[in-house]
């Protein structure tokens, strides 16, 4: 067991779980989607991305790609949220909430792929 693997697995999984926690619930109901959870998801996703930097293997490259997709989706969700709360006059309407949450749903998919890759990597490692 190496500490590096623990930290890596921890962040990849945490990124997925936080993402899921924010995503779950009625898509247009702002009360069911906590902004702190979105913030945490963004931060953990960024850290997971940096952890994947510089891995030269093929699976490492796919890992990095999925993380970058998740980052992109989550940052888009955040910007939508900023637009709704700060710039738009109507505030967090059900439509705005729905687009924030659906963007984070896309990120969730990428994060799930990341987790799947992690599992695949782990099992192949055991077989060797």
């Amino acid at each position: 067991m190496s500490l590096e693997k623990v930290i890596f697995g921890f962040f990849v999984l945490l990124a997925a779980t936080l993402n899921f926690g924010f995503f779950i619930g009625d898509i247009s109901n702002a009360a069911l989607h906590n902004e702190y959870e979105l913030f945490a998801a963004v931060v953990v996703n960024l850290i997971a991305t940096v952890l994947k930097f510089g891995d030269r293997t093929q699976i490492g490259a796919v890992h990095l790609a999925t993380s970058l997709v998740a980052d992109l989706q989550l940052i888009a969700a955040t910007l939508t949220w900023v637009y709704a709360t700060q710039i738009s006059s109507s505030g967090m309407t059900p439509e705005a909430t729905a687009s924030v949450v659906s963007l984070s749903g896309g990120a969730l998919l990428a994060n799930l792929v990341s987790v799947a890759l992690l599992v695949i990597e782990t099992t192949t490692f055991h077989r060797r």
Partner: protein
Amino acid sequence: MKPAMRRPLPRGRFHRQTAIAHPAEGSPTVFLVMRRMRAPLIVLILIFAISVFGLTLIPGQDADGNPVRMGFFDAFYFMSYTATTIGYGEIPHPFTGAQRLWVTATIYLTVIGWAYAIGSLLATLRDRAFREALALRRFTATIRRMREPFLLVVGYGQTGQLLGHALDTLGRRLVVVDRTPEHIDTLDIDPYYADIPGLVADARNPHTLGVAGLEHPACEGVVALTDNDEVNLVVAMTVALVRPGLPVIARTVSPAIEHRMRAFGSPTVVNPFDRYGDHLRLALHKPSAYLLTSWLIRGEGAEMPELGRPPASGRWVVCGFGRFGHKLTEDLRADGLEVTVIDPRADPVPGVTVIKADASEPAVLAEAGLAGAAGFVAGTDNDATNLSLVAAARTANPALFIGARQNRPANAPLFAAMEIDWLLVPSEMAAREIYARLSTPMLWRFLQEMPELGDEWAADTLERMRAYCGAHLGALWKLTLSAGETPGLRPWLRPGVVLGDLLRSPRDREQRLDAVPLMLMRDGVTVLGPADDTRLEEDDQLLIVGRPYARRSLVDTVTNRVVAEYVLSGREVPAGWVWQRVTGKIPTAAERSESPVRSSDDP
């Protein structure tokens, strides 16, 4: 590669082409930077996250004193400009004490985070390993993009640089590998026509040669010129095993290494010490042949060298009995000359008078009997010793024929001032010979076979060359009579072209071009100094020396049908198709092969 390494295979058995397994393709350098930046970036993200999160938790007050919390957006905005030391002030409301306390802490945190991140980035960029990785990547990419045939030069010391400059002037492309960074730096400092990629690496590692393009299809040959015979041997071996059949030229001064090199394939081995003796013997017996050789290998534009003529009889005194001294003594004795050797570490050799002493002592030189000697060679590996020996020998006997060995190129002016009759510069000698072999392979063959024709033939050729080209050596070039290279001659090749006709001037065919045909090669058989009435056939190869304008005129003759018509037959034919039909003057066609070519009377 391994099975072949286990036992030395006899010559001619290297059929298989082995590949150098490349080490895992280096990841783009940007990934290297990213890997190094992992820790600082995570620290930065964490510091930002904690700061922003804290700001959103700590309650503030609006202008009316109502408690409000900062939103994520405002907190992130505030942290962004605070962390980057821009500082727009406290928004959206003036901070409370608790907020200011938190912000104070975060300011210090973020400054540390930024300093750490930027410091790591700069350290990575200045890192030696990183810069080497970058240089290697650039070099590999350059090699991969090479489309022109190139020579791989291993070892870029004195000999390599001399050769490199000469070949670069000829327009040949080079790739250079050397272990010494200063030698590679000269590629940037010295003027070259082409961009020569250079790599600082140890050529003993086969991967180095692989990276330098040994397996590149455009690699047309390898030249091993390091000052370490062992390395040259390894290079010759590597090439023989990885690219069997690829021409290799290796330099060595040791007969044992030469023998080992020949065990692998058939490399061309150049031993400058050996050549000095060969040249000396050639000069003793056939001075004109030697003069012709040394003029031709000096390259285009060289003045005819003024060479001292060594005495063909009498006793020689050789100082220094290392590898050079041994080789020279052997050559002199093979010519029946008496030799006296002076060396403090010399072992007695039968048939040679050996004085085991330091030649710089006056008594020793007196003991060697310089007064009665004919020749003197200062052949130690120390330039200062050689110079002082020459001076001492001159004093003892002004009539002596003096030979000397110059080890360092920087000392050339000193040796020139001493007016040595016969100077050996090993690096120059190797470079000249390799240049002659590479620039015009036919020239090398000519030089090998020419001495057999005798000294008078050489003197005659020299006279003709001087008459046609003047005091400076003209261009040397090869002409192949083939449909591809000489399309203008196509109708004439079947019956055969008379050499004297071909060398008529396109301006006035009664005039002869200022060119001397040195050699004719047909099916691997050579004719040296072909006469003007020689009939040339298809696929004949000619080695010609002449003035540059003669070369251009000859190119005109062999590529342009109309010019060829005039030069070969004297018929003037219009150049355009219409005018040819109007005037009825149609150039000789390939089908009319029965048309005889008029034999020429000498112009």
